[in-house]
């Protein structure tokens, strides 16, 4: 039982990270129907910025987090302006191929400048190194931090999407882009804003993962990126609460598979879940079936 609870705790920490990445995927997909393959690399970029802040600049965790989020936002918006905007009216395959190209460019660009090897985050000291022992469970300060920051960011996101003017514009554009444009909404700005928010969340996830696992490398974004996308599909792509739930489910499943079965199978199982969802309920957990219209 203790081991079970411990796995749940680990699963929730990992799930928080997937949920943060999945939110970016789901928002971007909801608004321009694009699987943003470069999203996982924005997350990697966030981890590297965090590393830079904490080693070279010797900053504390929270300022590093904010800087990483700002830098990731800039990168995300730049990607959108340079690579995706010229293709607004191109075929979906063209945009998808571009997304893969951008993703490879960031990965191998980072590898070229930062070298391929693994880098380790500085060891935690003081408050950050604390561990809590509750009835045999071990909860590290990093895990607490991950969950708290994730919850804060999610509440903030809900507030932005539901209560602000930009959030309203985002919802309108994702519902019907042409109609939104006719109502006087600046679609381009709204799309950029969506990329900005998604990238900020991914950057936060990047630095949190660096704190949690201590090691980062240029290709670290590939797998979490794909898994976060699966999480988004699981919850129903385009639906924000769906991405959160999906992220936690995928995180817990993955931890359980590597805890109780074989950690070699953990990636395969997640992809098997995807194929299963596509067979059983392609619209996802919270999705509704939408009929294709001419």
């Amino acid at each position, binding site marked *: 039982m203790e081991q079970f609870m411990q796995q749940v705790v680990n699963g929730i920490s990992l799930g928080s990270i997937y949920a943060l990445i999945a939110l970016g995927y789901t928002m971007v997909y909801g608004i321009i129907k694009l699987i943003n393959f470069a999203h996982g690399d924005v997350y990697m970029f966030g981890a590297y910025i965090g590393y830079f802040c904490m080693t070279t600049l010797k900053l504390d965790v929270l300022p590093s987090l904010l800087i990483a989020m700002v830098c990731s936002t800039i990168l995300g918006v730049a990607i959108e302006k340079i690579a995706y905007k010229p293709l607004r009216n191109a075929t979906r395959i063209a945009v998808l*191929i571009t997304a893969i190209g951008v993703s490879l460019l960031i990965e191998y660009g980072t590898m070229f400048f930062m070298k391929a090897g693994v880098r380790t985050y500085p060891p935690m000291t003081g408050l950050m190194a604390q561990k809590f022992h509750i009835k045999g469970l071990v909860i590290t300060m990093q895990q607490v931090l991950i969950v708290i920051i994730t919850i804060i960011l999610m509440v903030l996101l809900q507030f932005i999407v539901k209560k602000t003017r930009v959030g309203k514009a985002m919802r309108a554009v994702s519902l019907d882009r042409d109609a939104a444009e006719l109502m006087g909404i600046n679609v381009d700005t709204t799309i950029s804003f969506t990329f900005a928010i998604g990238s900020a969340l991914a950057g936060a996830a990047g630095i949190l993962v660096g704190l949690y696992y201590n090691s980062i490398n240029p290709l670290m974004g590939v797998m979490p990126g794909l898994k976060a996308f699966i999480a988004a599909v699981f919850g129903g792509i385009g639906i924000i609460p769906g991405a959160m739930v999906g992220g936690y489910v995928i995180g817990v499943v993955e931890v359980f598979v590597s805890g109780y079965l074989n950690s070699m199978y953990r990636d*395969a199982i997640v992809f098997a879940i995807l194929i299963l969802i596509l067979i059983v309920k392609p619209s996802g957990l919270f999705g509704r079936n939408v009929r294709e219209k001419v």
Partner: protein
Amino acid sequence: MRNRLKTLINPNIIIRIISLALAFTVVQVLISVNVINSYLQITLATICINIILAVSLNLITGFTGQFSLGHAGFMSIGAYTCAIITMRYGTLWSFILGVFLGALLAALVGFLVGLPTLRLQGDYLAIATLGMSEIIRVVFVNLDVITNGAAGLSDIPQFVNWIWLFVFTAGVVWVIANFLNSSHGRACISIREDEIASSAMGINTTRYKVMAFTFGAFCAGIAGAMYSSYFYVIKPDLFGFLKSIDILVIVVFGGLGSITGSVLAAVLLAIMSTFLQAFSEIRMILYAVLLVAIMIFRPQGLMGSKEITIGMFNKLGNMFSSKKEV
């Protein structure tokens, strides 16, 4: 009967056969006089295998409009099947059996993955095929007894030489070209152009999408078998996501929807990679920039959906001869 005879002695087909035979003989002679040395022969094999892969992926992505990211997975099924069979029996017949069994298995997996995912609109196929190739890789890593795990298989008997490479490459390209020129092929192209319209015209879109996808997987299986039997070492990591991207770059560069474009791009990119062998990071950066730049500035690729035809050469010839007269 007379009609049939007429199509058989159609001048186009005769020219095709003659030019293929010519290409084969020239390379064969160059190999035998050692102008194409053993180093260049490796490039030649890579080109042939990449042509099979690119043309079959083009059938799925370029002509039918379904975005697949799992071509390397199908390739690995063909490679492992052929390798295991030839390592056990070691005869030429077992090699031929291995090629076809590998291709059939790849097609079967393609069918099983394609059937549920191709019904869906949108980009789910891309992620599902990516996931499938990842699952296949994990399975090969974990089936220690047959596949020797992550270390892979080595000392696979080498049966593939230029003759086999040529036969299979030309065969696959010819069959796919003919398929595209049939009513099935036109149905596939109509799906790419407008899925809703083509289903309104009575085309069973799911059936044709699955058909193209399965056929593409079959050809990728052949390419995998060629690979394992030529390079006699395979391991699961060779057939990862990056291999699928490699194939995709060839298809996109050559033009989505152009067979000759794919062939041309396979040759050009193989030559480019030979030069960039020592700098794999720069090669990937270059590939990435190439992908983005092509999509932004020339989304139809090198050739678009045009083909290099014999008629083009005639026109070119006429241009030159008319110039001379003037």
